[in-house]
């Protein structure tokens, strides 16, 4: 599948953290990352998204600087599209990161934002970008590859 045909997805930092081993609290995300590494999906990220993930790991989970950096290096390496949004969006009141996700998705012309954030899910679709919960992201599950835990 050519890159142009692959659906582009933006992952909410919370969803990504929930998917981290060893708990795999959002196992659907493991499947998404597997789809990315099998070149069926394009994963979009931005400095703001990576910074939010690092902030969560450092401050909410108490990870060390080295650990949190290793996680974002891993995710950044998996990502296939990096954007540095220039347009600022202020659509969602809280949390601010919801707007950062919209900015990245708009800049990348993404198809989906995979999120658990109620304010984003309430939008349902915005500028052609569909908001979906991890468990509802079904696009690539019909594909024949097997899902490996280590893809996360």
């Amino acid at each position, binding site marked *: 599948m050519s890159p142009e045909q692959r659906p582009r997805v933006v992952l909410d930092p919370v969803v990504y953290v929930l998917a981290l081993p060893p708990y795999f609290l959002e196992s659907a995300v493991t499947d998404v990352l597997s789809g990315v590494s099998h070149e069926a999906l394009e994963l979009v990220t931005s400095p703001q998204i990576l*910074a939010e993930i690092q*902030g969560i790991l450092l401050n909410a989970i108490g990870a060390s*600087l*080295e*650990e949190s950096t290793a996680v974002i290096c891993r995710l950044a390496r998996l990502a296939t599209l990096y954007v540095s949004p220039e347009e600022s969006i202020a659509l969602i009141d809280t*949390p601010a990161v919801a707007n950062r996700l919209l900015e990245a998705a708009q800049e990348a012309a993404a198809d989906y934002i995979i999120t658990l954030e109620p304010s984003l899910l309430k939008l349902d679709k915005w500028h052609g970008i569909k908001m979906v919960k991890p468990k509802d992201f079904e696009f690539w599950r019909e594909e024949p590859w097997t899902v490996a835990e280590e893809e996360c």
Partner: protein
Amino acid sequence: MPENRNVESEKFSVSAELERMIRSLAHRHGLPEVIFLKELLAYFSEGEMHWNRVRERIGHRMQQMGLENREKLISCIKAWREESANRES
């Protein structure tokens, strides 16, 4: 993963872009670039071994914090966000 010239050249350009982003993250957090670049280097040189060690340590921290289910983890993240929003306002 299929290997072809396009994929290889894409990987090369992604790596350069990644390094640029890692540097910008270091500045964002006001942290020395060297820590970011060291982790990046470890990731590329040790691959899965490095990642396995990291995820084991993070899993241990989550256990220590009592974050053994989704609800607890989400409420912990929410609390941190509220706290940092209050600090900024």
